[in-house]
């Protein structure tokens, strides 16, 4: 079995010797641009952990989602998703208003609100806060936006030890790996690799028992919470009418990071806003059900400002860093709907492509269907030309999405943008132009069909066995040209000798004769 991390190994010659460079976790999510996904996707299809575990685990979660949501929402499931989507869309349509309201309310509650145009600015703000408090140790909970900014790297670079506390993220950090799923980040790793990483990095005796491994992590991390100078979190939701931040976790690390250390810093993308507390239940009802098919995450922590004077404990300072980092680009009307995403991962679990290629094949922080539409807008369409096309447009993601983002529609839109930007291959363009032209008249369409039929039947040779002229199809093992990819994996059927139109003409004659 190959380690997914080794998918992206590079070799470099240093003073005549071949040195194996294992890509650091971060580089998996930040590959050389423009990114070509084909190699990683191909390797993934030969990776046992991916093909066996990821495949079945994602499908199992998808089934849990469907069963659970149908159970509780019944015929209202679709309406519930419609409602959640409409609340998000309304918020995005008036995001300036709600951001201002949030800033005012959060400030009134004692939170310090910061503004970050991009990844560098977000990290710089955080580093300043760390410096101000002479921080030596930071504990952080899972946050996709801190993956975007590569925060851990920047903090460690100035000597601040920074520990991921979500069990999955902690393991990935120890093993210098990167998340491959929005909710279950280490879905691509097996227990043996965790055992090896713990033995190597923590000096404990090797075990691959998940319970023992979890207990080891618990022991190590509990000390870290106690010693940490700063706790860093992401944010699942921001509530405009109260200035509150919400984080949803199952392990409790999120609540510990935001309760125990004296300073709390939240990194939050601007799209996480909802208008009011009244809207929160709609999302709490959908988030965990969509993610893993459980009614609600174990801990939902709604924080409004730092510790109040009358309270015994809690962080003395709360900082919220509002982050753009490409989001205002997506906020344009033609792509705004993409920002409804609440990062539940349901589209990944439902996606037959994700099940085959795994998260790292997407070459960015956001994998799966949502990543395939977000990443090209965040990081430039020309840099991620594969992502819009590496989909069968089956629509399972749209069916699963709790906020009804029409992902297939946006995949097609991005394909159109690639063509508009002349990023398609010349041969493809000519092929489709000719095909489209042939469809303008029935006789050219039929002639093209006949031509293709003769060509294929010649290649099929002896495989044609049936005598019925409407059924005498054969099989082609190999075709040249743009369709060569087809016969790489499967045979291509030939048309029978007669088409439907022939039958129709005969049928009309017979009827006329009667």
């Amino acid at each position, binding site marked *: 079995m190959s380690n997914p991390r080794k998918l992206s190994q590079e070799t470099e010659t240093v003073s005549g010797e071949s040195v194996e460079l294992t890509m650091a976790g971060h580089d998996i999510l930040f590959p050389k641009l423009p990114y070509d996904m084909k190699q990683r996707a191909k390797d993934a299809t030969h990776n046992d952990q991916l093909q066996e*575990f990821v495949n079945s685990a994602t499908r199992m979660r998808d089934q849990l989602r469907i069963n659970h949501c149908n159970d509780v929402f019944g015929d209202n499931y679709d309406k519930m998703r419609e409602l959640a989507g409409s609340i998000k869309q309304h918020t995005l349509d008036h995001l*300036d208003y709600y951001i201002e309201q949030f800033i005012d309310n959060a400030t*009134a509650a004692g939170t310090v609100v910061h503004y970050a145009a991009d990844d560098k600015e977000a990290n710089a703000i955080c580093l300043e806060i760390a410096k101000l408090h002479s921080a030596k140790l930071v504990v952080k909970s899972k946050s996709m936006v801190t993956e975007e900014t590569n925060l851990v790297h920047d903090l460690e670079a100035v000597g601040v030890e920074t520990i991921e506390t979500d*069990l999955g993220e902690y393991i990935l950090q120890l093993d210098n790996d990167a998340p491959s799923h929005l909710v279950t980040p280490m879905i691509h790793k097996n227990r043996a690799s965790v055992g090896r990483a713990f033995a190597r990095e923590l000096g404990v005796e090797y075990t691959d028992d998940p319970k023992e491994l979890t207990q080891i992590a618990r022991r190590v991390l509990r000390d870290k919470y106690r010693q940490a100078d700063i706790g860093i979190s992401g944010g699942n939701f921001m509530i405009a009418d*109260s200035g509150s931040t919400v984080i949803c976790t199952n392990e409790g690390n999120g609540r510990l990071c935001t309760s125990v250390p004296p300073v709390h810093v939240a990194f939050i993308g601007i799209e996480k806003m909802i*208008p009011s507390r009244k809207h929160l*239940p709609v999302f709490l009802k959908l988030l965990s059900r969509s993610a893993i098919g459980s009614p609600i995450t174990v801990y939902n*922590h709604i924080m409004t400002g730092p510790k109040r004077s009358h309270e015994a404990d809690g962080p003395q300072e709360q900082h919220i860093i509002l982050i753009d980092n490409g989001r205002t680009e997506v906020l344009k009307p033609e792509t705004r709907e993409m920002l409804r995403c609440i990062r539940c991962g349901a589209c990944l679990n439902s996606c037959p492509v994700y099940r085959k290629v795994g998260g790292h094949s997407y070459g960015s922080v956001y994998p799966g269907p949502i990543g395939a539409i977000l990443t090209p807008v965040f990081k430039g369409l020309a840099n991620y030309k594969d992502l819009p096309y590496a989909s069968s447009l089956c629509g399972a993601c749209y069916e699963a999405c709790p906020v009804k983002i029409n992902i297939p529609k946006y995949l097609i839109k991005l394909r159109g943008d690639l063509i508009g930007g002349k990023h398609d291959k010349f041969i493809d363009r000519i092929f489709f132009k000719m095909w489209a032209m042939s469809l303008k008249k029935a006789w050219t369409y039929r002639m093209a069909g006949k031509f293709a039929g003769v060509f294929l039947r010649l290649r099929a040779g002896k495989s044609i066995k049936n005598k019925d002229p409407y059924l005498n199809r054969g099989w082609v093992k190999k075709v040249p040209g743009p369709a060569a990819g087809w016969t790489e994996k499967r045979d291509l059927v030939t048309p029978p000798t007669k088409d439907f139109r022939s039958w129709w003409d005969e049928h009309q004659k017979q009827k006329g004769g009667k």
Partner: protein
Amino acid sequence: MTRSTRESFLARLHKPLGRPSTIINIPDPPEVDESIARLVAKDADLFAIFCDKAAATGMTIHQVTEQTLHESITARLREENVNTLSVCMADSQAMTHAVAQAGMQVQDWKALPGKAGLDRQFELDAGITDVHAAIAETGSLIYQSDAEHSRGMSLIVPWHIAIVKKSQIMADLIDFWNDRSSLDAQGMPASIAIITGPSKTADIEGVLITGVHGPAMVDVFVVEDQ
């Protein structure tokens, strides 16, 4: 590096939204249609639903009366060989007394305020708390920070023992948030935790493990108070 300000940051938003400045008079956000979003009716048997749903999350449910509460809790504490614990309730006196009487060491969590107090909670065997509400829909406990309620007591301790009065059980998450939505930002508790079960993870090969960072055990004593 020039830093973003509120103004420059908002300008970034105004551009894709197609306006020079923030519009103040915006349409009302979509209403939460309860015929769609409400999962438990207000007049349902909330007690039964809560016990059912809470048990399904892995919490242990005990149905007690005001008369049997202390006795039931101390019996349970003995069962688990608890030595040290703290009590965190709006009125802790009676409970503290009962537990101390049963021979367990009750630490006054308020004795060491702030970070030091939290730090000591890492050494406790259990924490007893009341709650601010409970939700039948999901079997959740709602725990808010205030002068009498340390954030750590339902979080840091390995065993969280929660006392829920039957009258505190609300039907649906919608009811709780409708109830809280009139508070202004300063009036909101700094920390509201919606707790639904013991701490869980399934990160390693999907194997479900309880007790990764938060409490591995949650016992809920539901008190008949009507």
